């Protein structure tokens, strides 16, 4: 946010930002406030009896040992998924940026998976990993490795990470590609003329120039792993076996949407929101320093 040159209009910026702000206030801030307010209430599902209970929902939450366990699972899940999705996408984008033959084909095949309907994506992975009929399970058996994610928690977590990262690779790939395309070739060529090797060119020029995109993707991917992975986990392992894949967001949705405990899940939303806001602020404060605009 360090633009030297700005326009000095008074009214215009408000007009420009108004549409988004209004929609945000009406359709996000107001309902979100109501949803979060439920965290201090104890209600039945239909909202017929409501009682104010202060921090009771929160106390109940933190007294639950399994809740604290899901913090750990979430940390591992988020780091692994985001890391895998970003690294893989970056590699593929850099490669795709440079090939000439077949470029359109590669790009289409690498972005298309993002278009798979979410209701089906999880099921596909179940098909592939099913211990009895899954192709991947079959191949693993051939390699001497018994696969049964219904009993083995580590395998279940691995599967869920792969499924969640998979979707994001396409997303990240697309944005990395867009970012790479915006880097002027002249700079790279000049460096080559100056004798810089491929590696140096990447790390000294391309990567820094790509950093705004990378920062964007890191923040968005972290948010994704924290918030948008309920569907995949639910379809594939439902948080099992024995809570091995129960992340914070999974527990939240399971309790709220399926268990209809709105007070409890609202309390969890507050906690989760605080965590993600904290993480984001940290990212903006410390990571953004190293972004080269």
């Amino acid at each position, binding site marked *: 946010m360090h633009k030297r040159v700005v326009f000095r209009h008074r009214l215009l910026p408000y007009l420009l930002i108004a549409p988004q702000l209004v929609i945000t206030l009406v359709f996000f801030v107001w309902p979100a406030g109501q949803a979060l307010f439920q965290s201090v209430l104890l209600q039945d*599902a239909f909202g017929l009896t409501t009682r104010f209970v202060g921090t009771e929902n929160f106390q109940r939450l933190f007294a639950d040992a399994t809740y604290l366990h899901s913090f750990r699972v979430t940390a591992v899940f988020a780091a692994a998924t985001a890391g895998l999705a970003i690294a893989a996408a970056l590699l593929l984008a850099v490669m795709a940026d440079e090939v000439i033959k077949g470029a359109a084909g590669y790009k289409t095949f690498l972005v298309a998976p993002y278009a798979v309907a979410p209701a089906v994506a999880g099921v596909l992975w*179940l098909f592939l990993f099913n211990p*009895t009929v899954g192709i991947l399970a079959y191949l693993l058996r051939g390699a001497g490795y018994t696969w049964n994610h*219904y009993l083995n928690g580590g395998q279940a977590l691995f599967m869920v990470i792969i499924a969640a990262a998979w979707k994001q690779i396409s997303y990240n790939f697309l944005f990395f590609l867009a970012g790479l395309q915006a880097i002027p070739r002249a700079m790279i060529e000049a460096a080559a003329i100056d004798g810089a090797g491929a590696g140096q060119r990447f790390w000294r020029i391309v990567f820094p120039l790509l950093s705004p995109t990378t920062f964007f993707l890191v923040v968005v991917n972290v948010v994704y792993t924290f918030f948008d992975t309920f569907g995949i986990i639910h379809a594939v392992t439902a948080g099992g076996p*024995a*809570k091995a894949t129960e992340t914070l967001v999974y527990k939240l949705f*399971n309790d709220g949407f399926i268990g*209809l405990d709105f007070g409890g899940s609202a309390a969890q939303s507050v906690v989760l929101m605080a965590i993600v806001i904290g993480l984001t602020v940290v990212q903006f404060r410390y990571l953004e320093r190293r972004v080269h605009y």
Partner: protein
Amino acid sequence: MTMHRMLLLGALLGALLVLGTTGTEAATEIQWWHAMDGALGEWVNDIAAGFNKSQTEYRVNAIYKGTYAQTMTGAIAAFRAKQHPHIVQVFEVGTATMMAAKGAVKPVYELMAEAGEKFDPNAYLAAVTGYYTTADGKMLSMPFNSSTPVLYYNKDAFKKAGLDPAKPPRTWPEMGEYGKKLQAAGYPCGFSTQWQQWILLENYSAWHNVPFATKANGFGGLETELAFNSPLHVRLVETLAEWQKAKTFDYGGRRGDANPKFNNGECAMFLASSAAYAGFVQGTKGKFEFGITMMPYRPDVQGVPQNSIIGGATLWVLAGHKPAEYKAVARFFTYLSSAEVQAASHQRTGYLPITLAAYELTKRQGFYEKNPGTDIAIRQINNKPPTDNSKGLRLGNLVQIRDVMDEELEAAWAGKKTAKDALETAVKRGNELLRQFERANR
């Protein structure tokens, strides 16, 4: 020119008049939200269409609203915004929530009485409706798609293992014996199960006439406490955990995830819902022949076997609508309960019929002879008149309690906990959830 125009205009007006007067008053329309996907969705639409065709006063509009959970959440959201439907299909684990929502629900017995519809609770199969009646026999919701667990077994595998396909195992010890013989004949696993909490804990309790929870499994009040950590239950889980080591029992996932194990001949026996019949017919076509029998029991327990309890969903009526519309709902329920509609539904989907008349009709039509084994489910739930332990369950937060059971059982199967430990923990955690529900609904 003008003459032509006038004639045309006159003709048009005349046509409009005719159309206008032949139109009847709009039929009273009611909304029915359901969660039936795939072929079952077509079944629902056919029922609605059948009702609409059978009379002109009322119209039922069947709308698919997602999975059971999505449909229920949608109905609740709609209720809070006063946009709710008349009828909503709710899965059996949501029973306690619906029952506790006294201001939101219109009980069926009340609905039928007010609308003046003939309604005889005794015409309904006690084991099916028992789940949804009050302690004094008043029916609160209309059973719609109910099923109960049965034992499927691979007849070809039996022959191969030297077992008589006409004599499937009846007791749990026999399950172990048969399982081991089948494994010796080359089958990787003896048996597996669907929905372990529903089958191995809830139905196990009912089948053996022991309580799953105190206060008549929760029918007697919100102060109920879980009771499935008794020595009998512990013994079952211990045995199965032991068998899991050699895969005589092989756990294949919650819900119906283990279906491929049976369909592909890996496990020669399979405990599953009676409604999965059609799916197995498809999945085993050309591979092997299978048979159906009742769930196994422990012969050393007094009074076994009792009767099994149902799973599935029912139709609840929501409060806040006009009396004329409730008349429509009542008429629809009468239609739905008729022997013809019930018998046809039962034969089409494999769900249990809810009236005795429908069962008798199906028998008379020779359906059970043509499809052997499809009457096992009914015979099982009707085995004996239900006791306090086998009417069903009325537990709040049952969705989460089931998750707890799943998790603890999984720990037992993986050998991480002893059976006693797992069940004790499950009961403890489950009781916390029950207390929470009690507080929120007092």
